[in-house]
């Protein structure tokens, strides 16, 4: 007996935070690619990826714009990294009304990573192409189709690296908090 599963080519950008050098080429090129006409202007504030960085605490985390949320969420994330608390939604992907991040600076319209969908299909997303230090790596894989796939492009931060960097305990706490919120 066999089960029928819907297979789908999934796209994913793997983020290796340890390789990020904070250059923001990803922000720049994303905004240029989405300009009309293409590349006619650029402005990191319009980018669908932003690099959250605090050099003095050695924190460099590229974050992709995720879903638009109509209202501010109830439980905020609280990350503790190197002893400093980040409770200002710093690493959240949502375009949410409580902050300017992932909104067009002029119109205020929400921004969302679309994996550069109108790029020729054989090409990698622009932010990946311009991240030649490989902090962003494009992956295509065949996986089961889920509701989530249809809704949102899959982007994840390599868990192993996060654990190696910040310790299992902290990551677990963070994940637990995120799950509660979920």
């Amino acid at each position, binding site marked *: 007996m066999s089960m029928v599963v819907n297979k789908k080519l999934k796209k994913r950008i793997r983020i290796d935070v340890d390789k990020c050098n904070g*250059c923001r080429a990803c922000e720049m090129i994303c905004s240029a690619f989405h300009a009309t006409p293409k590349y006619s*202007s650029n402005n990191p504030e319009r980018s669908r990826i932003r690099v959250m960085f605090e050099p003095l605490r*050695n924190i460099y985390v590229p974050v992709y714009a995720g879903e638009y949320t109509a209202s501010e969420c109830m439980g905020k994330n609280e990350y503790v990294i190197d002893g400093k608390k980040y409770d200002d939604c710093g690493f959240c992907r949502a375009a949410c009304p409580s902050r300017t991040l992932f909104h067009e*600076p002029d119109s205020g319209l929400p921004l969302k990573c679309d994996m550069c969908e109108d790029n020729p299909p054989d090409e990698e997303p622009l932010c990946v192409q311009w991240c030649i230090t490989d902090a962003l790596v494009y992956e295509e894989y065949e996986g089961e189709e889920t509701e989530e796939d249809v809704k949102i492009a899959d982007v994840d931060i390599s868990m192993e690296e996060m654990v190696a960097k910040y310790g299992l305990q902290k990551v677990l706490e963070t994940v637990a908090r995120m799950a509660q919120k979920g």
Partner: protein
Amino acid sequence: MRYAETGYNLEIDLTRGNIERVETDPKLAELHLGGLATTAKILWDRVPPETEPFSPNNPLIFSTGLLCGTPATGANRTIVATVSPQTLLMGYSMMGGFFAPELKYAGYDKIIFRGKSPDLVYIYISNDKVEIRDASHLKGKGAVETVDIIQQELNDPKVQVAAIGLAGENRVYMASIEHGRSSASRLGIGAVMGDKGIKAVAVRGTKDINVARPAEFYKLCNDVLKYIQFRDDHPVPGVMPILQGLGSPQEMKHVDEAWHTQNFMWGNSRVRKRDYWTPEVEEKWRGTQESVRKRLISCYNCPMKCGAVISVPGLSTYMMKCFSKLTYTMAAFADLDFGFRIAQRATEYGVDGFSTPQVMAFAVELYENGILTDADLEGCPADNEGRFYWLLDRIVRREGIGDVLANGTYWAAQHIGKGAEEFAHNNIKKHEQLPLKLGMLNPVYYLMYCTGEKANITQIEGQFPQSPFPTMAEREEFVKDWIQVPDEKFKQYLLGWELRGERSNPYYPTIDMSVDIVDWQEKMHYIDDAVGMCAGLSSFPLKPPYHIHNYPAIISAATGLEMNEDKLTEIYNRNRNLIRAFNVRRGLRRADEKPPEDHWKNRFPELEEKLLDAYYKFKGWDNDGIPTKETLQRLDLGYVAEDLEQRGIIK
């Protein structure tokens, strides 16, 4: 619509607290491009030669380059310029990082400060909102610390800050302007910022930068990025590691310091340690570097990672790039651990990592030779490392002997007298140079050292190898894919260059070849400084991604200006002459154009004179290094010629 540039400058009068947004003349980009060159134009127009560095009439200009903020990889330089307290000539320094692009996104090409604020202030620019804010709570704070405080106070981690430390506040001539992993360090620019009462400039921008021909420009930028990747995979063989790749010398990445520690000078640029680099030293230094280096980091829109986040146990974190890891170490005859430790304090104080260690080593030498006495150094520890910390603390506070040393070796020696001048032996145009002493005169380097307007060799050299390849096979290999040469003749120059014999230094490259080579290298630096390109991707390294053949198309597609190699060369000549004219008006003459006496052991006075003669002639200058009226007129600088004529400088 203006392309690549924003078309607006910010004029801030600190005395009156007046802020204006002023539209610029689009013609200026056509004539000069932008960056350093349009800054020099402002200085020429507004600063008569009598203006003292610490006069309220001496402007301090933060300028972006023409391409900053566009997708052109590495176009991120902020050019800071003013009259230098150290050389009394034009002082300018380029810093990387994120400041220039952010300023562009805020809608400005330049910030022009004049006047002086009675109280310490910082400037906050957020798009159209510009404020002069009280900075009394930042007085005495470290330059790195200041950034953190301002970002928290503005509740915006994305705000880009350039700040001075205690050294700038106290008008120390080696004071830098610090900006994260970058700094504008040379020529005392931080002292002028302190004199104006500006602790920091904070910028945040969320506007667009437009380019004229997007598809074409994007393709050209992509080609540059591909070439960078190609060069990453193809280091230049036969040269030392830091010269093989692109970027600033990759000092944060490489641990192997055999070359620097054994060829550069220790102490007050005196002692060569030929056998220093042993396996034990290498192991120790590797341990030090790898334990304090947390991450390699880049400037805006560049993959090269020339800087690093440095965290030494027990000290606050800071960022470092390039060669400052060794300057303190070697000046104090210490080791790398000391270098990283004292650099932390020096970065917070905001001092130039080239000049400052030399000033301290100079003081130690004067003391050892009885010129400075126990009375001068009262309270100073006896060990060398202790002395360096003690001297650094005195210098940035201008306390006691520190007040004298704070003016750099040249002025300090004049003040101290008693033969101290002999010890200030490593200056050009009153400015401390790399601690490098060599054997045989290199004619190309002779010219660059003499005539560089910035008195800093790393801002002039590049492109053409520093020494010949030993074998013809290596030379042929090198020239095979040398696409950057402006003309095929440069390949011949290199092919003919031998280590020994007739076709070796100092008589080969010949005088004419030397002039040609210098002109090419200068040209690339002047273009970079106008467009705001990092020299590490263009004028400085061997086989860079930007060169005279692709620059015209890149500049044209970004700006809409018509451009070709000849036009670009003419703009370079115009800019080169404008800066020279500014300095000539302030008194620069041939007599000032000399390298340190002991830079090479083997000197050739007759040849050196001929080299200078030929260089001046090539430039269209008279025998004293002054541009002729015809030269200036040919370059649309008739107004400059007229001014110099009226002053009797052009006869």
